[in-house]
């Protein structure tokens, strides 16, 4: 959802005259929304700015985002970072993998999500 939010924000800021670049890990969400410039890192969500405790990876990610900002010829420019999270890509199979959930798991997740929604509702009313 984070990726969708900032995609909408990037569009608004860009449309009002300030060039933008988005750094992110959810390629389809950002491209489905449509943004001017996007540096995609094929990393687990939470690592939009590079690998943990790896200044070199983070620096290279920022530099590439700046290059995208400078050189994109038109809107919807996506560049994929050449960095790999790890050689084995099996981590990509885990996100919201329903195949691994039992009916009990699903009931439990639903209960948890209803609690989350209730908390958000209360807070939004306060805000």
């Amino acid at each position, binding site marked *: 959802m*984070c*990726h969708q*939010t*900032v995609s*909408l*924000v990037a*569009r*608004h800021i*860009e449309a009002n*005259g*300030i*060039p*933008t*670049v988005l*750094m992110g890990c*959810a390629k*389809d*969400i950002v491209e*489905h*929304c*449509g943004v*001017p410039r996007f540096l*995609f890192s094929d*990393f*687990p*969500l*939470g*690592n*939009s*700015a*590079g*690998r*943990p*405790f790896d*200044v070199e990876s*983070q*620096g290279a990610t920022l530099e590439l985002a*700046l290059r995208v*900002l400078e050189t*994109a010829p038109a*809107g919807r420019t996506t560049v994929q970072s050449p960095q790999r*999270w790890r050689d084995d*890509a*099996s*981590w*990509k*199979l*885990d*996100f*919201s*993998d*329903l195949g691994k959930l039992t009916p009990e798991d699903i009931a439990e*997740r*639903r209960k948890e*999500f209803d609690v*989350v929604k209730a*908390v*958000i509702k209360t*807070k939004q009313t306060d*805000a």
Partner: protein
Amino acid sequence: MGDPKAFAPEHDAPIPYLQRTRDYYLALGYGAYRWAHFNDVPFTPLDKPLEKSRVALITTAAPYQPGVGDQGPGAKYNAAAKFYKVYSDSTDTIPDLRISHVGYDRKHTTAEDPNTWLPLARLHEAVKAGRIGELTPRFYGSPTNRSHRVTMETDAPELLRRCRDDGADVALLVPS
């Protein structure tokens, strides 16, 4: 290196989040989610080099809030730690921001190093190196989990206003 002519495994492609999230919530018994989707995309060319530009940073990370539960590295999804209004804070110091309020990949990453979702330290280095001109005096926090309407009609205009007030030439947006 393996055989350079061999194809990568089929699953070794960007994760299809739209489909997986839709399937997931349908399986939980909720309705189909409609993701934001546009055909037209705005585009504004840069009008000066980056080394002379003032850069704004927009994050979805949340300021740490004492008393609303675990927000530390690897903490469970914490809806109470969310924020609902745009905020700003100084770019001169490194702020205490957390991402327990969003759905990052808790299985494969731990959120121990804030530099993976907030490139503020790296941006300071880029200023020192002369790669970018300077940072705006403040960075900006964008609330998540809002309706599309609230994001587009309330939060995005407020973030634009703050970028303009601070004289931003370009903006870097980083979801967590």
